[in-house]
Each structure stands twice: as structure tokens, then as C-alpha cells.
């Protein structure tokens, strides 16, 4: 698979063991719990036979895996209270959409607790959520929302794209003494890649350059990064592809340095467009590297409406590697990009 190759700074050893994104997550969680007995997992259906799509199946410390009632808001407060009382919880949500009933706790409590008390306390809390489309799942089971969470001071937002990143970033998130939102795309769960068996961490706030090129900078995270890489490799495009790995903190230096070489920026962001991550990257790059931009920055995002269900509508709503390739090609050539290729609707 093409996405097993990495930037030299954080190279996944090749030729070793290949496991899935889901198995990498499971191994990271198991090792985190084995490494530190303060780590425990809690969440709706966290302890059932399905094991959160397999990411928590057959863990070595079942006594530290707690299923909960459908009470996401209070359970977030419970996890926070436990974090403030010496433990290191991993709170898991089967879908990010379900987590929204906990927005009071996430925004008013979890994100603010350290600032409110001038960082006298640690809040070692990881909130995992599975994001993204399923299959005809409609508007309440398909959201991603990473840009929205990144808007809130006090939350780190992590979006691993590969098995190697999934494990390394998960272990970093658990080791962090501040709240981390860890968003895993459902469509990445079966992807495979090289993953070391030993414990390792990847820095939060350091991007990964997935492909080197000279004529266009593409910024894409999570599933969008994999789609963009597929598009670039299938069509041999001369594109610099940057996966920020973490939406916040954002490795703006790597992005700006790339745009200063290529002169063009396209953000592929599988999220809602208004005031989102795509807008943030475009604004920040324009502020820092205006003189380098040969053309206005471009955003490829979802249409500004809820997700549909019918396959016919889904195929129009969501981007594909082929459509990304068409958009990248047009941008490289300086040609107009069709509206449906940038998520503005047909």
C-alpha cells in the first residue's frame, strides 16, 4: 500500500510487521494500560464483545475497561474528575456524533479546567471518537468536526491517517498531561501498514510529508490524506502532500515552507467548510506567505449541509481520489476547478 512510506524524520520501519490501523490502536491502548496502571478506558459499549470496532477487543486488563450507560455528558465529567484525581482515562465514543451530547463537559469543563486555575492541575484525559462516513449513515453518523473542536482553546486535536501514526500518536496522547481529542476515521480501520511492536511515540504538532513535489502544496489529514496520496501516486502528480497529523497544535512551519517552494496551496479537508480547518490553513498561510502565493488558496471540503443517505447522493457529496486528482491537475495547470470538485455542490 502506498501509505506505508513516510518522511525521513519519523520513518516507519519497512519490511517488518504489517498490521491494520485498528490493530495498531488496540496495541497502543493495551501497551498504554500495561505501561501505567493509572490508565483506564471508559465509554458506551467499551467493554462489549465488539470492542469498539475491534480497537479494544481482548485487552490485557479487562478490569480497567468500563462500559457506561448512555450518559456521555456525565461520563465526560466522570472521566475529567478521575483525571483530576490521579488517573489517566481514555474515554471512547463509537461515533463523534454521540459525543456531542457532552459538549458542555468538553468545552466548559475539560478544555477550560487548566486555564481556569492557571495550570495548577494536570488533565491527562484522552477522548477517542470514531469519525466519518459509514455506508448510507446520513447526517448524524457521518460527521468529522475536527475543525470545530480545534476552535476551542485547551483541546489538542489528533487525526491519525496511518497505522504507524495511530499507535504512535495514541501513545503520545495518553502520555500528555492535557486533554487530547483523538479522532479516528472509520474508513481507515482496515488499512494496513508497518508498525513496530515496541512502544513508541510521535510528537503532537509535527506534520508528516507523505509525498514530495514542486508544483502544488496539498494539506490533508486522516482519510483525506490517504485519498490525496492515492490520487497523486495514481496520476503521477508533482505535488507536495503534507499530513499535519494533529489539527491542533498545527505544524504551520512545514506547510508555509512548502508553499514558499510551490507557490500554490490546496487544503483537502473532509469536514464542513464554514470557519473550518480549511479556512484556518488558508488564512494562516496567506498571512505568513502572501508573497509566495501565485494563485488564491483552494479548499476542498464537504458541501455546507448535512450528509445524505442514498448512495447516489453520497457519491456526489463525498470526494474520491479520482476527483481529487482532477482538482489537483487543474490547480497545477492554473485551469478553473469545477465547483463539484471542491465540495461546493453540483
Amino acid at each position, binding site marked *: 500500500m502506498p501509505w506505508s512510506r513516510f518522511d525521513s524524520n519519523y520513518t516507519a520501519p519497512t519490511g517488518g510487521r504489517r498490521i491494520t490501523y485498528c490493530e495498531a490502536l488496540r496495541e497502543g491502548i493495551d501497551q498504554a494500560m500495561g505501561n501505567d496502571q493509572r490508565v483506564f478506558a471508559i465509554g458506551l459499549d467499551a467493554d462489549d464483545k465488539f470492542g469498539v470496532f475491534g480497537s479494544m477487543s481482548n485487552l490485557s486488563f479487562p478490569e480497567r475497561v468500563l462500559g457506561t*450507560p448512555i*450518559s456521555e455528558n*456525565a461520563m465526560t465529567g*466522570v472521566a475529567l*474528575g478521575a483525571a483530576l484525581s490521579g488517573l489517566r482515562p481514555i474515554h471512547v465514543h463509537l461515533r463523534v456524533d454521540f459525543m456531542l451530547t457532552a459538549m458542555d463537559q468538553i468545552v466548559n*469543563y475539560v478544555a477550560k479546567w487548566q486555564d*481556569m*486555575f*492557571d495550570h*495548577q492541575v494536570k488533565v491527562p484525559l484522552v477522548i477517542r471518537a470514531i469519525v466519518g462516513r459509514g455506508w448510507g449513515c446520513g447526517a448524524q453518523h457521518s460527521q468529522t468536526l475536527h475543525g470545530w473542536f480545534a476552535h476551542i482553546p485547551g483541546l489538542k486535536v489528533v487525526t491519525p491517517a496511518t497505522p504507524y501514526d495511530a499507535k504512535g500518536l495514541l501513545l503520545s496522547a495518553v502520555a500528555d498531561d492535557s486533554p487530547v481529542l483523538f479522532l479516528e476515521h472509520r474508513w481507515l480501520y482496515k488499512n494496513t501498514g508497518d508498525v513496530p511492536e515496541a512502544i513508541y511515540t510521535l510528537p503532537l504538532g509535527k506534520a508528516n510529508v507523505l509525498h514530495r513535489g514542486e508544483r502544488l502544496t496539498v494539506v490533508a489529514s486522516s482519510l483525506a490524506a490517504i485519498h490525496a496520496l492515492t490520487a497523486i501516486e495514481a496520476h503521477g502528480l508533482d505535488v507536495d502532500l503534507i499530513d499535519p497529523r494533529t489539527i491542533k497544535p498545527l505544524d504551520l512551519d512545514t506547510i508555509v515552507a512548502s508553499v514558499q517552494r510551490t507557490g500554490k496551496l490546496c487544503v483537502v479537508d473532509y469536514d464542513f467548510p464554514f470557519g473550518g480547518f480549511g479556512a484556518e490553513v488558508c488564512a494562516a498561510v496567506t498571512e505568513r506567505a502572501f508573497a509566495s502565493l501565485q494563485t488564491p488558496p483552494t479548499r476542498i471540503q464537504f458541501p455546507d449541509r448535512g450528509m445524505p443517505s442514498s448512495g447516489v447522493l453520497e457519491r456526489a457529496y463525498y470526494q474520491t481520489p479520482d476527483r481529487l486528482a482532477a482538482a489537483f491537475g487543474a490547480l497545477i495547470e492554473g485551469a478553473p476547478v469545477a465547483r463539484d470538485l471542491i465540495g461546493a455542490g453540483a
Partner: protein
Amino acid sequence: MERPRTIRRDDGLWLLQRMRLIRQASERIARLYPTDVMETPVHLCIGQEAVAVGVCRHLTDADKLFLGHRTHGPALAKGLPLPKLMAELYGRSTGCSHAFGGSMHLIDLEHGLPGSSAIVGGSIALGVGAGLASKLAGADFVGVSWFGDAATNAGVFHESLNFAALQRLPVLFVCEDNGYSNVMPKSAHAAFDIPSLADEYMTTMTADGTDVLAVHEQAGEALAQIRSGGGPVFLHCPTKRWMKHQGHERCDIVGNGIDEQRDCPIRKLERVLLDTHLCGAGELEQVRLSVEQQIDAAIAFAESSPFPTPAQLEVV
């Protein structure tokens, strides 16, 4: 139930001193508040002192107390030093939250106060989290969730009681029921009886929240049950809020039935201490004067403390 009329002298004096500390500090805050030296909303506890003091007499520094917006009373009762509270209200760096919290966000890790919240209801869940941490870590501290009657309107209240009961967590829920949600009476904000509802989830006790000896006795029973592994307990304390929901003025709700002579928790305790010859009138006056001196010192500390600098707004 007949109210307990006897108390050990050391307990009685502790209860009196802490109630006087809360009362007199609150009255001083109310007096100073119109001068704008404290640029923060204040939700005073005058009239409600018995609940905070009666419960906290049984708590250790290891027990973790999570508060809502009406913080001063329970925080002082738990052990927050008055100078750190005053400096926080004055917006000074020496405040308990280093001037980032204000009246509604108090913290004192040394005394088991891991923070308080200004959104009604949510901190109930944090006390449950402390109880869960205690259980998972095999520790012996308890979590205490502190809230008012209006917090029982919120979904997080039910979610928290349910989970604590399912897991049999070492958590004390203290409902300081002053009968009002801001100016809305309980009859308009709750279609249920609070202790009856709580009793569906767990052992529920009620104590007169204007009588510190009653609270002290019930809280002692509740915490004994919790510490012996008996699961969570709900302690319902009907009390009276003499002040407006926020600010320095007396409550002006018509027909709220407060008689400051009859309902005063300090007068009630002083009467018992005198009647049982545990203290003389001179000693009671000495307590009052000593607290007044503590308040003078706390305010002097606050006034002489430095303000924070904008450089402290740097992103951490």
C-alpha cells in the same frame, strides 16, 4: 427526628469558627462589593453556612470536593485559606487560582479542592469521577459532589447519580437546597420531590440545612456508610439563602419566609453551646473578634498583593 443537642466542645468550636468565618467574610465582601475592588460576580452563602461546615467537619484533605458557582462557603469550610480567597476576589496573583478563576473558580489542591465550575450541574459528574478514581486505585478518599436544588433539573444530575449507584462508588452527593433557582421557586423548577427522586438511586438522608448540628450528625452517618464500602449517599439539606442569587444585596423575594433571628445557623449553635455550658458568652464574642481579625489580615494581604501581568496570558 429530634435534633441532636449535644456536641463535643472541640467540634462545637470548630463548627462555630468556620461558620463565623464564612458569615463575617461574606458580610465584609457585601460591604466592599459596591466599591468595585472585586471585579467578579459573587454568590454569597449567608444563611447557608451550616451545610458547608457540618459536612466538611467530616472530610479529610484527601477527600475531593467539587463545587458549583456558590463556592465561598464550602471552599472555606474545606480548608481554603481566607487570604487566598480574598486575593482571588481582588484579582491578584496570590489568589488561589492566580487571578484566572475569580469567585466561581476556586482551587486548593492541598485541601482537596480540585476546582469549581460556574455551569450549574456539570460538576456533579466530577465528584463521581473522583469516586471512580478512588475505587479503581484502591484508595480510601471519597468524592463529594456539591450542588443546589436547581442543579437537579439538569440531565447530568440523573446521569451522575445513576452511574455512581451502578458502580457503588464512594461518593457523597450534597444538595444544598435553598429553594430557589435564581429567583424561580422550586415549585416552578422541579416537578419532583428531590429526596424522593434521589432515594430511587441510593441511600438518601435529610438534615435541616440551617442547623449545623443536624447536618454534622447526618453527614457523619453518610460518610461512615460511604467509607465502609456501602456505596454512594445523597444528603439533602433544605436551607435558606438570605442574599440575592448574585451580588451584595439582601434577597428581596416576597414571601420567602426568612426570619434572620429564627433561621440563623450561628445563633442556633451559639444557643446550644451556652445552654450546655460548653462555652461562655465571652468566649463566643472572642470567636467573633478573632474571625474579624483574620478578615482584616486577609484583606490587607489581598490589597498588598501584586496584580497579574498581561504576559501571563501567553498560551501554555
